């Protein structure tokens, strides 16, 4: 008997009578927020930076202004043009991206309650990119904000299937040494979300 059959047989023998799934409708006393305000407040609170772009403002100029002039910017966003493109060789050898200072990408939407943004591999092309870069820059239309994770997964479903997708909430961080918070553990040291009008 294979382990698979053995495990499944024992699970079947030992599992109790079926219990129905609960509903997921939020109770009336659930939290309600002003999504924009909550998003900005939360992301700032967890070490992220939020820059709001005003109607008519030049996105590229604001971007350049937000970062060190000497940094190299790799752009996989469809919203702005220019900067460096993703080198083909990186698909074979993602480690080549180790010297990328700033990766610039579009996010599908953001979540007010926790400051996270949802990005998928299909959007940003190469899985490793938002992790290996030194700094992460994300473009997010400010109307694309949901209140909480329940809405977030409804939105994920509506957007469609992905191979790899990730919620990113702020720069990579650790507090493993005596609970002292340090930003920039293994991934980006900073995360900037540019909120588009």
């Amino acid at each position: 008997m294979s382990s698979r059959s053995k495990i499944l047989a024992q699970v079947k023998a030992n599992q109790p009578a079926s219990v129905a799934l609960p509903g997921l409708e939020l109770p009336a006393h659930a939290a309600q927020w002003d999504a924009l305000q909550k998003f900005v407040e939360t992301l700032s609170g967890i070490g992220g930076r939020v820059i709001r772009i005003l109607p008519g403002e030049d996105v590229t100029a604001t971007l350049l202004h937000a970062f060190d002039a000497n940094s190299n910017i790799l752009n996989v966003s469809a919203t702005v043009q220019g900067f460096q493109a993703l080198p083909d060789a990186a698909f074979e050898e993602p480690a080549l991206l180790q010297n990328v200072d700033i990766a610039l990408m579009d996010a599908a939407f953001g979540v007010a309650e926790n400051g996270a943004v949802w990005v998928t591999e299909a959007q940003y092309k190469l899985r490793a990119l938002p992790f290996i870069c030194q700094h992460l820059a994300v473009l997010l239309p400010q109307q694309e904000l949901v209140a909480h994770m329940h809405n977030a997964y409804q939105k994920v479903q509506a957007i469609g299937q992905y191979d790899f997708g990730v919620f990113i909430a702020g720069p990579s961080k650790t507090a493993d040494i005596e609970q002292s918070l340090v930003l920039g553990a293994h991934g980006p040291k900073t995360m900037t979300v540019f909120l588009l009008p």
Partner: protein
Amino acid sequence: MSVHPNKPSQPHAELAQQFNKDEDRVNWHDETLWWIRQKRDKAAWSVPEWEWLRQTASDIKAHVLSNMHDLLTQFEAQALANGAIVHWAADAAEHNAIVHRILQENKVQQIVKSKSMLTEECGLNEYLHEHGIDVVDTDLGERIVQLAGETPSHIVLPCIHWKKEEIGELFHQHLHTPKGNADPQYLTGAARIHLREKFLTRKVAITGVNFAIAETGEVVVCTNEGNADMGTHLADVHIACMGIEKLIPQRQHLGVFTRLLARSATGQPITTYTSHFRKPAPGRQLHIVLVDNGRSRQLGREAFRNSLKCIRCGACMNTCPVYRRSGGHSYKYAISGPIGSILAPNLDMRKHADLPFASTLCGSCTNVCPVKIDIHEQLYQWRQELYKEGLAPKGKAVSMKMAGWLLGKPALYRFAGKAARTVLRLAPFMVKNSLNPWYKQREMPAPPKQSFSEWYAKNKKA
């Protein structure tokens, strides 16, 4: 320097006593974890529907446990359709052998691993080490304890028992940082450089799994450091190891669990990264190892079944007044604290017979648990179980039988009570000595001349 992995023969009480020899350190350990408990409280109070979330999560998990067979096969079918390779391991040994075989097939001897309590439970690191494989744990806390030759003392905060000066010294020895530098920012920076080199060069990455979705066949991994993603996306092969209880039915249920997990664990609104791995990247491999290792047996133990709802947040450890004052290593099991004390006896009742007694049954663990596991009630039930199996300490069995017999006889009890008070009054040295554990740090109650029964008989009885 911190204690090393403890000899399994010593009971929790003895190891806890050793931990308590340095009272300042106990205070520091207690206060650090209490601070995290407070952060958890604050995060929970930011969500008015918190208790609804807990109940819903618990109910979803109840559905999972009662439909595990079908959900497992559904998950497997979906994962296979996604292009993942699915393995089944009945126990720890088979799990370790499967991982080793994948490494051999890929001719790899150096790997990175992000945090996975399952692999700790299975002793994967030791196993692979014996087979000549170099495993680098990439979670900072886990790397610290690994460099020190220890195991994690906490499932979320692996080196919570280490002081920064000690980490500075450890890094000085292993990573050649300047002696005396104990700045967390600096030390983290040094670890970043040290581990980046590993991420960039190692071709196989192991991760744990926080949630596996039956509906889609995807696995979800949560980290703050980004180490699971750095490992997997830069490697050719991703091996995701999971206990079979990690299943959830549908993707929408993540809405409930992702709201609870990080808030319960550290008081964050969500982990920095919540990564959803559905398909392997083009040209790369995704292996999913489904591990039983006693879980299907626990599923059949009605009183203990709910322990399988655990999402490994560690909140019960942070709130446990015993854990905070005895340290994770005193539990001698990969998962320490209250939840470990109800999981471990399922694997080896004799070896872990002391753990259900390492609790005052205060119940705080049950109240913080995001999936509402009745932890303290299961601790009580394990005590009954251990007694039935003849695994209760001998002396305790005799004294409890005598107490039960005496207390069933009111007249005899009144006589004995009077005798005890008389002894305390006339011959206090009989109890006020070093053989009485109560007396070591506490005075005995002053024995009154009259019990209440005696007083009542004299003053009240008509």
